[in-house]
C-alpha cells in the first residue's frame, strides 16, 4: 500500500470518526439503547436462569453479548446515513472528482467505523462490569471481544454503505433499520438455541448468522475459551465482511457510473 493511499484513507477515516463523535444524536442510541435493553432484559429475564440446561446463573453475563450486536447495528445505520448524506449534499461526487484513489473513498469510511467499533466495544465491556457481567475469559478475552466487536461493526457497516450507495438517500437507509433489527430478534439473543422450544423459531435461529456472532461474544463471557464458538463467530464476521465488500464494490461501480 503506497504512502499516499495510507494518507488518503487516514484522512477520510478521521473525518468519518469525527462526523459520528460530534453528533450526539448518533452517539446517543449507540450507548443508551443497548444499555437500557441490557438492564431491563437482565432483570426481566433472570427467571430464565432457572430453566434446566441454562448455561449460567447470571443472565446479565448471558445477555451482554447482544449489546455488541446492537452497537454494530447502530454503526450500520450511522455509516449508511453519513454516506447517504455525503451523496445527497454532493460531497461524495466532489471527492470522486479529486485525484483520490477510488478504493480510499469507502476504505477511509470503513477504517473509521472499525476504530469506532473498537471504542464502542470498550464502552460495552465497561458497561458489563458496571452491571455485574463476569468475563470468564479474563483480560485476553476482553481484547478478543474488542477485535470481534470492531470486525462485526465493520462487516455490518459495509451493508450500510451498500444501502447508501444504492439508494443515495439517508431516509431510505434509516428505513432499513427495522429490517436489520429483525435478525437480532429472530436469533439466540434471549435464550440459548438448545432452549428454543418452538420448532420454527429454532430453525430460523439456527440459520440466522447473527446467532453465531452472539454466541461468539457470549462464549467469552460464560465459558471462557470455547474454540468452536469463537471460530464460528469470527467466521461469520469475516464472511459477512467479504460479502459486504463485494456488494460495496458492485454498488460503487453503479454509483460512479451514475455520476
Amino acid at each position, binding site marked *: 500500500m503506497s504512502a499516499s493511499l495510507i494518507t488518503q484513507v487516514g484522512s477520510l477515516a478521521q473525518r468519518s470518526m469525527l462526523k459520528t463523535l460530534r453528533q450526539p444524536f448518533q452517539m446517543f442510541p449507540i450507548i443508551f439503547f443497548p444499555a437500557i435493553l441490557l438492564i431491563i432484559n437482565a*432483570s*426481566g429475564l433472570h427467571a430464565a436462569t432457572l430453566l434446566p440446561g441454562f448455561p449460567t446463573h447470571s443472565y446479565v453475563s448471558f445477555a451482554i453479548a447482544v449489546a455488541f450486536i446492537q452497537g454494530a447495528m447502530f454503526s450500520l445505520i450511522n455509516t449508511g446515513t453519513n454516506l447517504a448524506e455525503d451523496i445527497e449534499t454532493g460531497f461524495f461526487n466532489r471527492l470522486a472528482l479529486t485525484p483520490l484513489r477510488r478504493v480510499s473513498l469507502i476504505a477511509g469510511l470503513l477504517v473509521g467505523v472499525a476504530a469506532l467499533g473498537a471504542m464502542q466495544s470498550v464502552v460495552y465491556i465497561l458497561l458489563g462490569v458496571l452491571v455485574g457481567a463476569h468475563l470468564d475469559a479474563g483480560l485476553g478475552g476482553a481484547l478478543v471481544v474488542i477485535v470481534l466487536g470492531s470486525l462485526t461493526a465493520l462487516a455490518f457497516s459495509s451493508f450500510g454503505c451498500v444501502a447508501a450507495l444504492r439508494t443515495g438517500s439517508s431516509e431510505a437507509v434509516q428505513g432499513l433499520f427495522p429490517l436489520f433489527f429483525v435478525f437480532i430478534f429472530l436469533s439466540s439473543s434471549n435464550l440459548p438455541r438448545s432452549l*428454543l422450544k418452538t420448532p420454527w423459531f429454532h430453525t430460523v435461529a439456527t440459520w440466522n448468522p447473527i446467532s453465531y456472532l452472539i454466541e461468539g461474544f457470549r462464549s467469552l463471557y460464560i465459558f471462557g475459551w470455547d474454540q468452536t464458538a469463537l471460530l464460528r463467530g469470527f467466521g461469520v464476521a469475516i464472511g459477512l465482511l467479504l460479502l459486504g465488500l463485494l456488494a460495496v464494490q458492485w454498488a460503487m461501480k453503479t454509483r460512479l457510473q451514475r455520476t
Partner: protein
Amino acid sequence: MGDENEAATNVSATTHTTSGEPPPTPPSSPSPATPHEPQARSTVWGVALAIAWRGVHTYVRRPELAIPSLVFPLIFLASFAGGLSALGGVPGFDFPAGYTAFQFVFVLLQAAMFSGLFTGFTIAFDFESGFARRLMLAAGNRRGVALGYALVALTRATITLTVVTGVALLAGMQITGDGVDMFGLYALAALLVLVGFGWAAGVAFRFRTIQAGPLMQTPVFLILFLAPVFVPLPLLRGWIHSVASVNPATAFLDAGRGLISGVHNHTALAYICAVALIGVFTLWTLRGLLAAERAG
C-alpha cells in the same frame, strides 16, 4: 396533496376557536354546498370526521406508514412467544392459556399504545409539512382536530390488532376466557390506544416537529418494559420487581392476561388507571392544542 387539500376544505369555516362555540354562519356561500353544510363542518364532530377520513385514507394508501405499525407487533409476537416459549416451564410459572397467550396480551396492549403514538407522529409530520397549520386555520372548532386524530388512532389500532390477533390464532394461541372476557380485553386495548394517543398528541402539539418522536416513544417503551413482560410479577426479582409493583402497565398486563385466561386479576384497577390516564392526557392534549394555537 389532494387528500390534504380536500380535508382542509372539508373542515373550512369562518372562525377559529377552541371554545366549542359554533362560528357564525357566513351570509352567503359561494360553494354549491347546501346551506347547512358549512355549519355542520364547523362542529367538533364535523371537523373530527373530516380529519379521520383523511388520516385513514392516507394510512391505507401509504404502505410506508402502514407496514411498520403492522410488522413491529408481529416481530415482537414471533420473538417473544416463539423464542421464549421455554419460559413457560420455569418453576412457578402457571398460566392456564399457555405462553403464547401470555405474550400475546403484551403484544396486543403494546400495539394498541403504539397505534396512538404513531398517530402522534402523524400530527408532528403534518405540522412540519405545513398541513396542520392550514388545518388549524380552516377548522371551525379546533378540538375537533384532536378528536379527529384520536379517531385515526383508533382506526389504525383496529387494523393492527385484527392482524396481530389473526396471526396469533394461526400460530395456535389458546383462549380460555369467554366472549365477554375477550370483549373486555379489546375494550382495555381501545382505552390504551387513547392513552398512547393522548400522550403523543400533547407532545406533538407542543413541539410540532417529528424530531420530538423519541420523546413520544421512549417513556411509553420504558414503562411497558418495566412491567412483567416475560414472566409474571412473582417471578421477578430485585429492583424490577419493586418498579413493576407500582407500574400501571403491570395492572394492564395482569388484567389483559386475566381476561384472556378467564382468571381475572386486577381488571377493575386496570380500567380505573386507563380512564384516569385518558382524563389526564386529554387535558395535556388540549393544553398542547392551545400552545399550537398560540404559536400560530
